[in-house]
């Protein structure tokens, strides 16, 4: 089963007191989403408000992975806090665009860029309706 074939590795570092940087390696799919969810819940529990998700080593993400990202996005927004995605691979970037998640969750090219956005208090495209979604 994919669990054995594609183990998920999540490495957590704290660039700031309230900022958690999660470097994810492996497929984010139905088999690994729960584990990823536990990592995020743990950081929420420890009072982090901003979540930087480095997805540069994630070759594949399905809707289960997407839902975890959206959940932490919703939970962070209520704190209030923010979620940033860093350097997604083309395949993951494609899914983010397809599902419109990139409309809501800002995508940064690097960790420094994401940290700068956290510092600027800019959480990316603001409330739906005001952003790029207008055709």
């Amino acid at each position, binding site marked *: 089963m994919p669990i054995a074939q594609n183990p998920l590795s999540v490495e957590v570092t704290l660039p700031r007191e309230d900022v958690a940087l999660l470097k994810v390696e492996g497929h984010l799919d139905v088999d690994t989403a729960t584990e990823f969810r536990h990592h995020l819940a743990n950081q929420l529990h420890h009072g982090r408000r901003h979540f930087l998700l480095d997805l540069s080593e994630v070759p*594949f993400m399905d809707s289960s992975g997407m839902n975890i990202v959206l959940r932490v*996005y919703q939970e962070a927004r209520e704190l209030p806090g923010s979620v940033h995605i860093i350097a997604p691979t083309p395949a993951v970037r494609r899914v983010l665009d397809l599902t419109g998640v990139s409309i809501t969750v800002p995508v940064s090219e690097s960790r420094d860029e994401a940290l700068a956005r956290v510092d600027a208090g800019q959480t990316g495209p603001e409330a*739906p309706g005001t952003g790029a979604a207008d*055709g």
Partner: protein
Amino acid sequence: MSGPGQPHEPPEWRRTDPGPASAEPPDTAGTADTAGTAGTADTAGTAGTPDTAGTPDTPGTHEPGAAHEPGTAGPSAAAPGLGAMTPLSPVGRLAATVARLSREVRAAQAEAEGRALIELAKGILVARLGCGPAEAARQLAELAEQSQATPLEFAVDVINQAARDRMSEITDAFLTATGADGGREAAEADGNGAAAGSAAVRLRSAESRALAASDTQAVADALLEQALRPLGAVAVAIWAAGSDGSLTLAGSAGFSPAEAARWRYVPPDVATVARSGLTERAGQWITSLARTGLPSVGRHQYPEGGRAAVPAGTGGRVHGVLEIAWPVPLAPQPPAVVRQVEALAELCAHTLETYTPPPGGPEEPRVMPDAAELMDLADGLHDPALVLVPHLDDAGHLADFRIQHVNKRFLDPAGRPRAVVGGALLLEAFPMAAGDSELFQSVERVYATGEPFRARRMNLTALVDQVPLSATADISISRHGNAVLLIWRIEDETARLASLLQHAQRLGRIGGFEENLLTGEITWNGQLFDLYGRPASSAPVPLEELAAHSHPDDAVAIGRFLRTLLHHRRPASAAFRLQRPDGVTRHVRVVAEPVLDTDDRLLVVRGAYQDISAQHWTEVALAATRDQLAHTEQQAIERNRLTLQLQHAIMPPAQAPLRVPDLQVAVRYRPAETEQLVGGDWYDAVMLPNGMVLVCVGDVAGHGIEAATSMVVLRNALRGLAVTGAGPGQLLSWLNIVAHHLTGGVTATAVCGLYDPARRTLRWARAGHLPPVLVRGPEAAPLPLVKGMLLGAVAEAVYEEDEVQLAGEDTLLMYTDGLVERRDRTVEESLAQLLSTARPTPATLDQHLDRLLTYSRSDTDDDTCLVGIRVG
């Protein structure tokens, strides 16, 4: 060597011709010797051979009291008579003078050869003793004196010991057999000083000259003079065998030049003495040529004479034949003589190996295809083929064949992979080849003679786990260059089993079919027409239309069956309810397997239907009993079944067609293969009160009853909202609110379009879903990706809209990612691949959707929805 005499071995006839030969050995022995002398007189003038049985041991050495077996045609068993020529006539005198002169010449030659042998022995001693040549010569003389042998004999002894070759064996055997003569000869050799005193010396001399000779002609001369005349023979012919089975006279002695020229070439398949010798490993020993009726060189000269034709081969390969002629009928020869002749034949083979026919003679291809070319050839064959190369043992004898190559069609009867068989030795890989089938013997013979071997219905046996399994095969073996090509065709199982199958089909109520996917040709047997309840004159039903003849609830099972068979190209089976035109429903199982061509393309599908109605109800009854016994398990199953039923109720796998003018609408739903993975995919296609047609597909994240429930909510909500007449962007915006406020915080994706039949336009929007695909003529491409967040993730979202103008024959497809989702490639790549598979666009939209489902290459076990509209 020249020790005391031993009793002769009892005569052991290797080969005899039918006839009274063996009953009259004493006579023939006598006449053979007489003729030996007479023969030379006849052949005076050829190649320096006119001598009177040349050897000093002939007349005077005959000791009546010696312990001779009557049949021994030993060199010394000579008779005094000189035949027709008497020394009294002038011609006779002249002949006697010539004979004397040539005897002197010959003695000088022999002496020279003897010196060559002594030099060779000295060389061996130099190497062995590490001494100089002078010392070696001294040693040789001393040792010879000690062993009371002549230096020449001792030299031969030294060479024999050093060589330890076949020639030594033969020599030893020969000397043992003629021990008494040997001892006496040695004594006489001392006495008259002639070099060619003993058989050992004679053989070595022949070998020495044969090996030194540059051509087969010289070899023939040497053999006749050195080795064969003492046996009473008068002439010798050395034939080179062509790969086509022809024979070329490579050298001869004792025949007149005119006769030799007449026989310079014998075409293939002409039965001659030499040819009969080519195919018999032991050679042909013919008592009298006249009795066999076989033609051969010099037949008119010696019509009643005996002949021997022995294959001349090295390392298992026959290069030609050594034919020896006697002037008189030939008694069966003792083993020692037979072995000696065989050794001489082997000598010839060494020369023949490099023999090139003289220019202008019959040409044969000298450039033989080598094993590499043969492997290419083997790969091009449609039957299993092996390329074999000879495997020699340390002594240079053919021991086995190495399987150099097995072609692609090769199927091991024992089921071993090709790599295991390739490279192995034939007898190791197929130990039974040496058994009753005589396969190995056939290969050996083809290799030896070059004569191809064909056999029909040969019985082959293979050991499978120590169990011998036999198969009947057509065999073809041929030699190419130094390799052997072995081809077999296992007798067509299909043909053999046809009648058996007929009976089985009848008894099992099985209907067989075969569909050619390239030509569309379908073959049914009579039983299948009965099973379908259709007249035998009606057209067979193609597999792709199976669903149309079955219960609607079985559409999924049939779809999966077709997908496994046609797309995954694996054998598949399915059970379904066949609805016959007469209203009868039968439970039927269909099993089928794909047949691929060499390019791995699907060529033919063949299989069978079986009426399992009776069996089916038994199974149902058994299942009910099992359910009662496993109550808890049943509950879990029940839950899944209910979920599935719920899903089926809301979304039948196929829906009744929607009636819209100038528009075909078709939908498909394929549940996940595992029942636990009840999914949240949905589709809808409905005519709205304002005349617009709503088409949509959606996908709720996750699986199970919750996903299915959410799906129902969203689907119904969208239907209700659509009645308001709002545009697709607005509809998705509202649907997002519904999704966001559903408990559990589900997310979902959807694509939603409103088709205006009057304007033939589709206005559409998407919420995180794959955009629709437009198929126009040969082109198929997704519509541009308008922006739209997936449903339920945020409280409010806005959805971009787009409009596309459709034309007649355009097809628009909406689908969920179960159709194309793969981890190893993008959705776009999967989609492009899938659409190209579905080309050319099938005649009806329903067929188009079916084909897409069948050939979808998704690797996730997910449910799949597909909606299509076709204009026109």
